[in-house]
Each structure stands twice: as C-alpha cells, then as structure tokens.
C-alpha cells in the first residue's frame, strides 16, 4: 500500500458529495416532518441537482487523466460528459416525480432520497478509475433502484417487478464481480488504467484467466444494460414498475452503466496493438459485442412488433436501442455512445413521461388501444408522444435520427470488417418504424374511447416535458454543439503512470 500518490482531491468528487449529502438530508427531512417533506423535498432535490450540474461544469477546465484518490477517481471528459447526462436525467425525473407522488398518494420523502442515492451511484460509475469503484457505484445505484421499482408497495405487479429486478440484478452483479476478481488475479491490479498498461507491456500473469474474467464481466455488463441475450428481465421489470420509475430505470442507470462499460472495455481493454493476450482479448470482446448488438437489435425490434402494451413495447425498444448503442463501441471512442445515450435518454424520458400521464392511478391504462382517438382530445400530450416515437424510429429531423446516423457512420468508418453490423442495424431501424408508428395511428385515426378524461398536468411536469421536447428537436437539428463537446480530447492521454 503506497500513500505517496493518494492525491486526495476532494474537489474532483464534488458532484458525488453534493448528491450523497442531499440524499442524507432528504432522509432526515422525511424522518422529522412528513408534511413539510411533500413541499420541501422536490424543491430541495432540484436545488441539489442544479448545484451538482454547476459543480460538473466547474470541473470541466480541470479535466485530465490525473487520477485522484489513489487511482479510484478519474476526472476526464468521458466522466464529465456522462455525469452531465446523468444529472440531466435526474433533474427531468425529479420534475416529473412530484405529480406522480401526489396523484398516487405515495410517501414522498424517501423517493427523492432514493433518487439522490441512485444518482450518486451513477455518478460514481461514470467517474470510476478502478474496478472497485465500478462495482461500488453499480451496486449503490442498483440497490436504490430495486426499492424504487417496488415503491407502490401494495401493488402486486410492482412487488413482482421489484423482486425480479432484485434477484436478476444481484445475480448479474455476482457475475460481474467474479469477472473483476479473475481480472484482478490475472493482471495483479484493479486499476483500469493499470490493466491497460499491463496488457500493453505484455505482463499478464495468467492469460487464460484474464479471458474468463473478461467474458464474465461482459456477461455482467450485458445484464445491466439489458442487451440480448441477457435481457429477459427487462420487459417484466419495466412493465410492473410504476411508469415514472420505469422512465428512471430505462435512462439514468443505463447511461451510467454504458459509461463504466466504456471505461472498462473501450479504455482498459481497448488494446488492439498489444502483444499476445492483449490483442486477442480485444478481438474477442469486440466480436462478442458485435454479436450481442446484432441479436439485441433484431430480437428487441421483432418482439416489439407483437406488443400491445405501451410499456412493454418501450421495454423491447430499449433493448433494441441498447443494441444500436453497442455498435458505437466498435470505434473504442466514447463520442458515438455518449451522443446516442444523450438522445436516447431525452426521448425515452419524454415518452415514458407521457405514458405515465395517460396511465392514471395505478397504471390502469397502458395498453396502446387505450390511446384510441385521443390525438385531438389532448394535443399537448399526443403531439409530443408522436415526436418521441418518430425520434425513436430514427426519422429526421429528430435527435434519434442524428444519434443513429452518428453511431452508424463512425462505426462504418472505423471498422471495415464489421460493416455487416451497420447494415443489420439499418435494416432493423427500418423494421422498427412499423411499431413506432402504430401508437400514432391509433391516437389519430381510430374512433375515440368513450371514458376518456383529460389528465391533469402540473407546471413541473409541463416543464419536464418541454425540456425533453426541445432537447429532442434541438439535438436533431443542431447536433454540432454537443458533438464538439464530445470530441474534446483529454490532454496528456499518453503520459499516465501505472498506479498500484
């Protein structure tokens, strides 16, 4: 144990400190005054999330590969960018949460506290420079979201969803952990940059064990991002959880796991030119990911065609989107994945928010047939839903199109021998247009259902909806700003010393 390069740079973990502290304070608010909590908690968590956002922006000029806390925290552009997306998801979800909790008469305080802890875990995943931190962040966010999935405590469907999420989540976490343990044994370090250095130097102690370890980590991450063939929990969990929680599960944690996935695989194991086992491992995981991506998109899209429940359809669509995102890994750069995650998070949050508002108490109306003829009854909900559906289908000028275009283009350019995957992806996005258009057709061209009443919309929900709509259109029409941010290179990438 060396103390020399501890580098206790507390400023670099300011975002995590703010969210964790806010979570603790929210717990105390709830414990001491339930009544005040209903009014105070949403305001306080919004305030804390905006402060987190500010701290991330304040960290931007200090982005570098210099790791703090003995290599546990890395403050580079990947971390800052993903942290920004995660906190943005948190803000939108918080805006939506107060109406959801009021309408369903659920206890408010813990929900915000759990959301803060989940956000802390996600931020930790984005900033992890060490396998220990990846695991810790993953579990922090997972444990908080297990509880949130079952937040409607007396609802059997929510119970079941929470139980399934918990059992399969911890099962997959065990796989991930075993993979990490074997990787540690094979390389002698848990530091991700350290693993890369050892691969490049060709000093792997047990090469075969490293292969097994990496394979198991791939399984663990595959479960967490819900890509085929590890997706089976997704539809059940997404359908059973309260719709707002589904919106959170489908966006924030997924973005964060992709950040950690990029860190471990694209950075730590992205060594195509390393001697012996290093290059072999790179080849293996790139090919495995390509297959996972192909199965994921194809399976997700084809099963989504048969769905008649909006939440299940969106769940399968998110499996397909996970597949598209994996194509971005072929470039071993974070820009395509990062941009796709941004667009996916915006349109997913927006779509689930509208499903939530139309679903009413206890998620009673989530079948697509429930939406018949509502198009001109509630234009303030039906037109945004149409925008999000078109964006997910990848129709210009929405953000979804730009995200897909950027991922496909960069994968096409960077890896000539995996171009078949891009072709599969394009065929898939054509197939997907059918089921994304189906709700629009039902909304606008079917005779209206008789018992439809207009849902209430609180100002905060309207604000959240406005942010997602504007974001979806903005990043579709003017993606250059975001792409410029994404293509920033952290200076001094080559001169990083191995830290043990």
């Amino acid at each position, binding site marked *: *144990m060396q103390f020399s390069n501890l580098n206790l740079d507390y400023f670099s973990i300011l975002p995590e400190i703010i969210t964790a502290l806010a979570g603790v304070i929210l717990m105390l608010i709830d414990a001491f005054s339930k009544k005040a909590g209903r009014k105070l908690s949403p305001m306080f968590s919004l305030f804390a999330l905006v402060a987190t956002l500010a701290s991330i922006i304040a960290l931007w000029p200090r982005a570098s590969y210099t790791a703090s806390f003995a290599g546990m925290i890395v403050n580079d552009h990947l971390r800052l960018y993903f942290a920004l997306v995660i906190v943005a998801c948190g803000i939108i979800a918080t805006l939506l949460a107060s109406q959801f909790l009021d309408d369903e008469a659920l206890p408010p305080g813990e929900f915000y506290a759990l959301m803060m802890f989940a956000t802390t875990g996600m931020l930790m995943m984005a900033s992890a420079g060490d*396998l*220990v931190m990846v*695991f*810790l962040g993953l*579990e922090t966010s997972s*444990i908080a979201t*297990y*509880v949130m999935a*079952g937040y409607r*405590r*007396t609802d*059997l*469907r929510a*119970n*079941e*969803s*929470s*139980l*399934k999420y*918990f*059992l399969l989540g*911890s*099962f997959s976490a*065990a796989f991930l*952990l*075993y993979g*990490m*343990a*074997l990787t*540690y*044994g094979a390389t*002698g*370090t*848990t530091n991700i940059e350290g693993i890369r250095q050892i691969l490049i130097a060709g000093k792997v102690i047990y090469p075969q064990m490293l292969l097994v370890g990496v394979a198991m980590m791939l399984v663990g991450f595959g479960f967490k991002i819900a890509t085929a063939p590890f997706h089976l929990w997704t*539809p*059940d969990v997404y*359908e*059973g959880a309260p719709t707002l929680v589904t919106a959170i599960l489908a966006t924030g944690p997924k973005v964060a796991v992709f950040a950690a996935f990029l860190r471990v695989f694209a950075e730590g194991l992205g060594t195509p030119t390393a001697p012996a086992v290093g290059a072999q491992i790179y080849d293996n995981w790139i090919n495995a990911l390509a297959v996972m991506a192909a199965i994921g998109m194809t399976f997700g899209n084809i099963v989504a065609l048969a769905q008649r429940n909006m939440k299940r359809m969106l769940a399968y669509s998110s499996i397909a989107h996970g597949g598209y995102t994996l194509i971005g890994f072929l470039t071993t750069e974070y820009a395509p994945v990062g941009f796709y995650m941004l667009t996916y998070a915006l349109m997913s949050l927006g779509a689930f928010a509208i499903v939530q508002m139309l679903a009413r108490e206890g998620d009673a109306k989530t079948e697509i047939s429930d939406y018949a003829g509502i198009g001109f009854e509630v234009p303030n909900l039906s037109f945004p839903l149409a925008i999000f559906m078109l964006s997910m289908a990848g129709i210009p000028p929405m953000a979804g199109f730009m995200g897909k275009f950027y991922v496909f283009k960069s994968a096409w350019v960077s890896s000539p021998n995996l171009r078949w995957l891009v072709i599969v992806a394009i065929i898939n996005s054509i197939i997907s247009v059918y089921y994304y258009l189906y709700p629009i057709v039902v909304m606008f061209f079917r005779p209206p259902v008789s018992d439809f009443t207009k849902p209430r919309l609180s100002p905060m929900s309207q604000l959240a909806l406005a942010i997602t709509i504007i974001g979806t259109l903005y990043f579709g029409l003017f993606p250059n700003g975001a792409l410029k941010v994404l293509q920033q290179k952290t200076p001094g990438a080559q001169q990083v010393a191995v830290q*043990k």
Partner: protein
Amino acid sequence: MVPLSWYLALSAALFTIGVAGVLVQRNVISIFMCIELMLNSVNLTLVAFSRFLNQSTGQLFVFIVMAVAAAEAAVGLAIIISVFRNRETLSVDEESLLKL
C-alpha cells in the same frame, strides 16, 4: 503452503453451486441465499489472490463487497417481506403476473 489453484478451484465450485442453486431453487429465500453464496465465493477468490500477489487491494475489495452484500441483503429481505405480505407465498413459480 496450500497452492493458489486449490483456493481458486474451491471458490469456482462454490460459485457454480450458487449459480445452479439460483437456476434450480423455487423459493425466493433459497435463491437469495445462493446469490449470497456466489458473492462470498468471489470474496474467497479475491482474498486468495491478495495473499499470493502480496497486495492488500484484494482484501480492500472484499470489505467493499461485504458492505454491499449486507446492504443488498437488507433491501432484498425487505422486498421479500413486502411480496409475502401481499401474496402469502414465496414460490417464484407464482410470480407470473407479468409474462412475455
């Protein structure tokens, strides 16, 4: 001294028993215990590596894993209790409201 491979074989066997248990068992509590067994077999691997590589990193990892496993156990038991209160059964075969 006991060679490293023995420890690894033991923990791999324990991990496999855990995986098999998760797939075969029908009671939620048993499944949950099998998951804990998987986590603890990983702990054994980490400690063995830590000893043979002469580093403390592996042991540190074990501390984190233990704390996380405890938090997971608390949340897991709470979820199981709330399921039981609503359903009066703990068989996963009965958990079939949501289907493909």
